[in-house]
């Protein structure tokens, strides 16, 4: 015997025995297979396996450069895996197929179960079996009183143990409790659907935008101002809330005390001090944005997701006119902020040629036989190590990275002493005279920049609430016990004595059933004295 109100597997078997299936029959057959618990289990395991490659292979949306490198290094496997979507696992059709099937299965399973549970909650516990001694847990005692009185008290005892009771005849009472188990289970499964809807909502209506902001500079929340902008399909980028933000100062602290490997020089704190104006005309507020402390702007959340150095570089032509003067961000390549970047002087120089510089910024520079490098992430001895090019900066006007030069239509300047390519080494405040009357380049000073990311996810509340409901449902489902108990009374050995037999039936094996019956009997005895 089992607790049959819980159809863990709604009608799986009868479909299989149907002899020949019509088109409709096939559909029903497929539907039943899909919504069976065995399929759900298979899909769950499949989902786990399918999620793994994305954690092992580099993923394009996380690190495009590493992905490209990997494909280049694995000439045979790379392109094949790429075709199959292994570098965008979580956006690939096969991954989507698994979770969509799982959720169709979930809906197909949970909806009928909810209906059954709704009915079960409003129906009475079933009739008591003939022989209660056959139930896995049972007990029998004899008490004073007539069978009617004892049955009445037994009913009360069951109720005070939070059973729902019903009497089909004058000698038995049926009781059941623990409906919350199934309620919790259904809430759990339904809430999982809520989580998915929330995620989809966030994908469709959310956006993220990144900007590199050197100390002293300002930004406004308009699409064109961002370095990169990734809006969801349904986002109107012209409707961004027009807040503005100025980076006043930036603090970075690195480990200097602990010398152990992997510790010395690791970052300890980053703080971006900003002036924030929620909308034009509104009063300006001072804010600190930290790594774990984003700024809620009211039109997206602003995070501090990166930082680095932006040396201020000035280029002059032969007559001393300034042709370029900007805080130029260099992107950190490692833990000691060896940073790469480029200077593009777009105004044409003599003979219509444009100048370009590319190279390294080193916050704590060392120059020895191993070449230029940085020894520490803080700007203790900042230096620039650059090479110079002239020619056409933007061949064909194609868009290109701000942080590197496209030298396909440029020639490298050579050292006038014939020592090969020209190498420029500048410390703070130094100026280098370019050969051949091309003017000069100056490293004025260095400031830090903050990598600010503004993000909006309108689905996150739904996801969070659903996840918490799922957790609550899960706890109910796993802790509440679904139990049935039946009591039968019969005249006892002496006058005014009654034999009470109680039997219990639980879902799954339930260690506490014996105690539960004991408890009911104790409550009954209390009432009989």
């Amino acid at each position, binding site marked *: 015997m089992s607790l049959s109100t819980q159809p863990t597997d709604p009608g799986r078997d009868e479909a299989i025995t149907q002899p020949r299936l019509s088109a409709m029959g096939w559909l029903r057959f497929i539907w039943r297979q899909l919504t069976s*618990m065995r399929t759900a289990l298979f899909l769950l395991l499949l989902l786990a396996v399918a999620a793994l490659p994305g954690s092992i292979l580099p993923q394009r949306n996380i690190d495009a450069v590493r992905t490209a490198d990997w494909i280049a290094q694995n000439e045979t496997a790379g392109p094949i895996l790429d075709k199959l979507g292994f570098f965008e696992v979580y956006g690939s059709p096969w991954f989507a197929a698994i979770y969509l099937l799982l959720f169709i299965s979930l809906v197909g399973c949970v909806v009928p179960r909810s209906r059954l549970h709704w009915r079960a909650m409003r129906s009475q516990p079933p009739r008591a079996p003939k022989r209660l001694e056959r139930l896995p847990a049972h007990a029998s005692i004899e008490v004073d009183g007539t069978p009617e009185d004892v049955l009445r008290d037994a009913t009360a005892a069951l109720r005070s143990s939070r059973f729902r009771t019903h009497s089909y005849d004058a000698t038995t009472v049926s009781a059941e409790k623990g409906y919350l188990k199934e309620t919790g289970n259904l809430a759990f499964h339904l809430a999982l659907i809520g989580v998915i809807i929330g995620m989809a909502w966030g994908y469709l209506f959310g956006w993220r935008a990144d900007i590199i902001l050197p100390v002293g500079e300002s930004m406004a929340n308009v699409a064109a101002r961002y370095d990169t902008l990734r809006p969801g399909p349904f986002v109107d980028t012209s409707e961004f809330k027009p807040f503005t933000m100025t980076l006043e100062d930036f603090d970075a602290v690195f480990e200097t005390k602990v010398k*152990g490997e992997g510790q010395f020089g690791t970052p300890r704190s*980053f703080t971006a001090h900003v002036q924030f104006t929620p909308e034009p005309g509104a009063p300006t507020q001072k804010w600190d944005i930290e790594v774990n402390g984003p700024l809620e702007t009211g039109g997206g959340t602003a995070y501090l997701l990166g930082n680095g150095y932006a040396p201020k570089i000035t280029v002059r032509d032969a007559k001393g006119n300034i042709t370029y003067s900007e805080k130029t961000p260099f992107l950190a390549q490692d833990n000691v902020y060896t940073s790469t970047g480029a200077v593009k002087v777009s105004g044409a120089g003599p003979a219509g040629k444009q100048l370009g510089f590319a190279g390294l910024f080193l916050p704590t520079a060392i120059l020895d036989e191993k070449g230029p490098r940085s020894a520490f992430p803080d700007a203790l001895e900042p230096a620039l190590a650059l090479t110079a090019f002239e020619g056409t900066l933007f061949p064909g006007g194609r868009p290109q990275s701000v942080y590197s030069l496209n030298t396909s239509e440029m020639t490298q300047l050579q050292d006038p002493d014939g020592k090969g390519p020209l190498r420029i080494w500048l410390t703070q405040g130094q100026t280098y005279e370019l050969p051949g009357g091309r003017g000069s380049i100056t490293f004025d000073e260095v400031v830090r920049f903050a990598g600010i990311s503004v993000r909006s996810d309108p689905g996150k509340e739904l996801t969070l609430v659903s996840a918490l409901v799922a957790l609550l449902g899960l706890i109910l489902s796993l802790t509440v016990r679904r139990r049935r108990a039946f009591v039968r009374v019969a005249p006892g050995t002496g006058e005014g004595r009654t034999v009470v037999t109680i039997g219990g039936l639980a879902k799954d094996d339930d260690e506490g059933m014996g105690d539960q019956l004991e408890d009911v009997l104790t409550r009954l005895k209390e009432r009989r004295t």
Partner: protein
Amino acid sequence: MTNETLAGYSNLALYSAMVVLTLSMVLYAVYLAGLLPARESARESAAEAEVTERELVGVGAGAGASERAGRGVEAGPPAPVELSARTRKAGGIAQSFAVLGTLLLVATAVLRGLSVHRWPLGNMYEFGVVASMFTMVVFVVWALRRDVKWLGLFVVGPVLVVLGMALTVWYTEASQLMPSLQSIWLAIHVTVATISVALFAVGCSVGLLYLAQRRFGRSRGVLAVLPEPRVLERLTYGLHIIAFPLWTFTLIAGAIWARQAWGAYWNWDPKEVWTFVIWVVYAAYLHARVTRGWSRESATWIAVAGFICVILNYAVVNVYFVGMHSYSGL
């Protein structure tokens, strides 16, 4: 900023804990060995299943009925097993040492935390120590409620291996945390994760004993003195249904933290993927247990697979996979 003296005491506490736990492990082995002859004589009284059950686990009547019937043994009146004084003593001392070792591990973690003025869960070494600590806490607290001395060897042994690894492979000097770890969510998310890992660990240990009994029968060696398979299976399930909601919470708390620190609650970072995979595998275990056509045995294998994922997540993903969680301190 780090207090070297306290960090030193923390390490001292760890060495002491390992010595005490080693003794505890040896005595648990002696205890198990001592049960063997007791079992033999009990078998003669033809009431073995009942006895083991009463003596070792104290489950209610009825639970073992089918198993006994299946093996054709008459259920006679329970004859209490006479444990030799030596065996009983070994079990008692092993238990006391386990408690002492646990307290020393607590001291290790607390002193470490005090020495750096932060929650002691910032690198692999600290995860290893705290996970071991919680595993011992789970075991010791469980032992207050039922006699699980038979399990001692299978918990303390693995814990010692992890502590050994923590000291030799993952050791990291006490220091401050990098910015993305400086959050209250570190305490919440990682602590709950470690507690559920501890529960999964004990659950996996019991599950493996169950599977071993299923495979090799109950007549051989140590397997003979363990509780019967049905009981082991239910204990396995019981531990997992505590651990699973905690892991679910870990997942949710991690997502909340990810939104704070990285700007999005889900980034498919390798560590997130593995946390999710582990969740799915254990969900599959709970599912399999009630799916028709799946035996309890096959379901338990899924639980074991889940714990293998937990180990990989810790020992491999932390160290070798590139992602935003690269905080191992190695």
